[in-house]
C-alpha cells in the first residue's frame, strides 16, 4: 500500500487510498446504515458511499499539490449529502489542505499535528467536545498514537489499535451530541457509528 508504506503521503497515495476506501464503503454501506439506524437516521452508509463516489469522480484530475488535492476531495465530499459526518470529514480535510497548500508531500512525522488541526476545525464546526462519543474521540486517539511515529506501516497500525481501543472504551458511555443525543440512554452499549466509519476507512488502507 503506497499511502503509508513509505515515509510520506503524495497525491498519488491519496488517489490509491481513495480508490480502496471507496470500494470498501460500497461493501460496507448496509453495515454502516444499520449502525446509524440504531441511534440516528440510518444514512451514514449512504453518506460514505456517495461521498467517496464524488471523490472518485475527481480522482484522476487531482493536482500534485497535495494540499490542493485534499481541498478537491473535501469539496467533492460535500457535494452529495447533507449529513453531519460528511461535512465534518470535509471540514477536517479542508483544514489539512490549508496547511499543506503548495506542497507535494506530507511527512509521516506531520500526521499527528495535522490530525490535531483537523480535530480543532471539526470541534469548531460541530460544537462538540472530546468525550461526547463522536468521531472526534477516535481522531484524538489517532493523533496521540501517531505521535513519534516515523514509519508508514507502523503509524497505520498504531492508529488502528488506538481507534479500536477507543471504540471499546466508549461503548458503555453515553452519546452527547448529534441525533444520538436524543436517545442518549439508548446509546449505552452501542458503538458510535461515526467511529465505526472512521475505522472502516483505516481498514481499507491496511
Amino acid at each position: 500500500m503506497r499511502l503509508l508504506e513509505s515515509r510520506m503521503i503524495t497525491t498519488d497515495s491519496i488517489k490509491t487510498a481513495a480508490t480502496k476506501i471507496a470500494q470498501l464503503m460500497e461493501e460496507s454501506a448496509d453495515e454502516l446504515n444499520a449502525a446509524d439506524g440504531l441511534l440516528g437516521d440510518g444514512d451514514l452508509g449512504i453518506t460514505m458511499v456517495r461521498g467517496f463516489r464524488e471523490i472518485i469522480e475527481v480522482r484522476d484530475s487531482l493536482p500534485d499539490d497535495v494540499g490542493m488535492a485534499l481541498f478537491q476531495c473535501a469539496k467533492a465530499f460535500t457535494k452529495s449529502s447533507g449529513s453531519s459526518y460528511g461535512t465534518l470529514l470535509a471540514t477536517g480535510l479542508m483544514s489539512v489542505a490549508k496547511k499543506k497548500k503548495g506542497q507535494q508531500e506530507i511527512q509521516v512525522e506531520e500526521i499527528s499535528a495535522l490530525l490535531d488541526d483537523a480535530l480543532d476545525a471539526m470541534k469548531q464546526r460541530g460544537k462538540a467536545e472530546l468525550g461526547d462519543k463522536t468521531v472526534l474521540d477516535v481522531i484524538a486517539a489517532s493523533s496521540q498514537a501517531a505521535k513519534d511515529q516515523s514509519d508508514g506501516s507502523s503509524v497505520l497500525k498504531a492508529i488502528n489499535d488506538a481507534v479500536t481501543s477507543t471504540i471499546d472504551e466508549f461503548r458503555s458511555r453515553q452519546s452527547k451530541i448529534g441525533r444520538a443525543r436524543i436517545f442518549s440512554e439508548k446509546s449505552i452499549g452501542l458503538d458510535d457509528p461515526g467511529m465505526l466509519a472512521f475505522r472502516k476507512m483505516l481498514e481499507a488502507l491496511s
Partner: protein
Amino acid sequence: MKKILNDPYQYVDEMLAGLCSAHPELYRQAGEAGRVIARSEKIKNGKVGIVSGGGSGHLPIFTGYVGQGLLDACAIGDVFASPSVDQMADAMREANGGAGVLRLYGNYGGDVMNFDMAGEMLEMEDVESSTVLLADDVASASKQEREKRRGVAGMVYAFKIAGAAAEEMNNLNEVTRIAQNAADACHSVGAALTPCTVPQAGKPTFEISDDEMEMGMGIHGEPGVWRGKIKKADEIANEMIDMLLADMDLTSSSRVSVLVNSLGATPPEELYILYRIVKSRMEEVGAEIVMPLVGRYATSMEMTGVSFTFCELDSELEKLLKAPADCAFWKVG
C-alpha cells in the same frame, strides 16, 4: 398518516418540479441538483440576499417563502434532513447581488455545520455573508440557554421582517441586525397529537396512542415537556400561552403579532377555536395584537398539532412585518 407519492426517494425532487411548474412566475429551480429554489428573477444588483435552507416537509417553510419581500433563495434537503454544503453554497450564489448574503435559518446542528461551511466556501469567492439563527422553541431549552433552542415557526416572522429590510436596500449589517432582532423577538411552542411519515423511512416519526398528545414537541418529533391525555382546546391554549408569557416581558404597552399555526392536519376550524384564548389572554395582559396569523405557516407534512408563536414588535419590526410580500403561500399588502 397516509401519503400520496411515487418513489419515496423522488418525493422532494418531484415536489420541487411541481412547485416550479405551477408557479414559474415566482420560483425557479437552480443549483447543480435542482435542490435550490430561487426567485424567478435574478436578484437586484446591490440588494442584500437572504437565503434559508433546511429539510423538506415543512411547506411553506422553507422553500415556499422564496418571493418578493421574503427570501431570495433556499437550499432544500431531503425530508427532515439538512441540505448539502454545496446546495447551500449554490443558494448563496443565487442570492448574491453584490451586497452580501444573510443566512437565516433554524438552529439544527447539521444545518449549522453545513451553512457555516458553505459560508466559508463563498468567502473564498469573495462573497460576504452573515448568519442569524432562529432558536425560538421555548420548550427545547431554558431561557438561560436560549442559544440551544430549536428553530420553529418563528422563522416565518424572521423571513418576513428580514426580507422587507433587504427589499428596502439596507446594507448587510443593517439587515443582519434587524433579522437578529426579529429572531430574538420570537417565542414559540408546539403540541403534537400525531406523528407524520418521512417518505424514505416509510413509518411514523414517533408513536403515540389514540388519546394522547405531547406538549412542547419539536417539529420532527423531538421530545417535549410532557405526554399525556389530550386536553381540551382551551386548556392546551392556556398552557402554551403560559409558557410563552413566562419567557417574555409583555406589558400593557407591548405590541405583539401572534401566529396560531397548524402542524399540518389540524384544520383552521380548530386554530380559530384556539385563537379565542390567545386573544383573551392578550387582552388580560393588555398587549395589543398586531396582524395575527392563523393557518398553516410552518408544518410537518400531515402531523396533527399546533404551535403558537408570539413576536414582540418594536416600531421598526412592525413596519417591516406589514410591508408587502408575495409568494405562493402568503401575500401581504
